[in-house]
């Protein structure tokens, strides 16, 4: 499976969000088992959304990112439109739910 989800540092995160019309950022940590399931689901849907930039940030390495974006549970997906958070998905969700959320994002 081609990796379309960019691994980000805290320093890269801001630039990534600001430079994307549509962006999805996956906040995760290695110890978080549901994060690994959600990552796979995200990997499986990402190829269908060329307008969206997908990134992920390891909150264990960059706790300041979790603090800045008020991440209180893992995994959390933040969906950005023109640099603003428009949706927040906490926990593992189904592929269908994720697709609906991504469709809403680019509507």
């Amino acid at each position: 499976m081609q990796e379309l989800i960019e691994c980000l540092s805290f320093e890269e995160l801001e630039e990534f969000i600001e430079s994307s019309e549509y962006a999805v950022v996956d906040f995760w940590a290695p110890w978080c088992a549901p994060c690994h399931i959600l990552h796979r689901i995200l990997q499986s849907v990402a190829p269908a959304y060329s307008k969206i930039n997908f990134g992920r940030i390891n909150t264990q390495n960059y706790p300041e990112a979790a603090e800045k974006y008020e991440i209180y549970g893992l995994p959390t997906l933040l969906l950005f439109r023109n640099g603003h958070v428009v949706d927040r998905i906490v926990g593992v969700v189904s592929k269908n739910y994720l697709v609906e959320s991504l469709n809403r994002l680019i509507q």
Partner: protein
Amino acid sequence: MRAVAVSISGLSYSSFADCNPRFLLNLFSSTYRGVVENREFFEPIKVWQIILRRTPFEDLLSKGIQLSNIPLSNPTYGRPSTDMFKISLKEELELLLKAVNDYSDKYVVLFSVNAYERDLKNKKNACEGLRLIDSYLEAVFEIVDNYAFFSPYGFDGTKYEPYGVYISSMPRPSEEETIKLDQILDIVLSLKI
């Protein structure tokens, strides 16, 4: 108190997302879970040397651990011992069930399922294999009081993943840390309590 620890080489959380194993996902949602982190070792002999911390087998038995089908050699080490290049996944899982029935009242059975990864390398369908594992682990779960189902690494059919699965009846002291290979033996020992 019946206890078992089952290692399934190559099993990953990615396969949970791809294949939706009913029993394992239910268990995942309702009990202690974690992630085995292993970025270096994907060779069975090395992996198991680290997991067992090179402890003499007699010492493990005296500590209450019955090794079963451990791929430190071929035929595998322990009771049962199989030819890991020839045995089918179903045959291996039948032996897991038998080992649990035969030994788990006296020992913690530490069993390694090896055929799943071998089958993935041979391009067999991952979800078919996982469905089989799912049903046998459910049967094992019905027999035992304590359990740990884990994998020392993941494998997606083409490449290794540095993260394996971990689902257990026992809590760990540090839930917000990954489990390293050399910590697994202590987890296995804790299942006997």
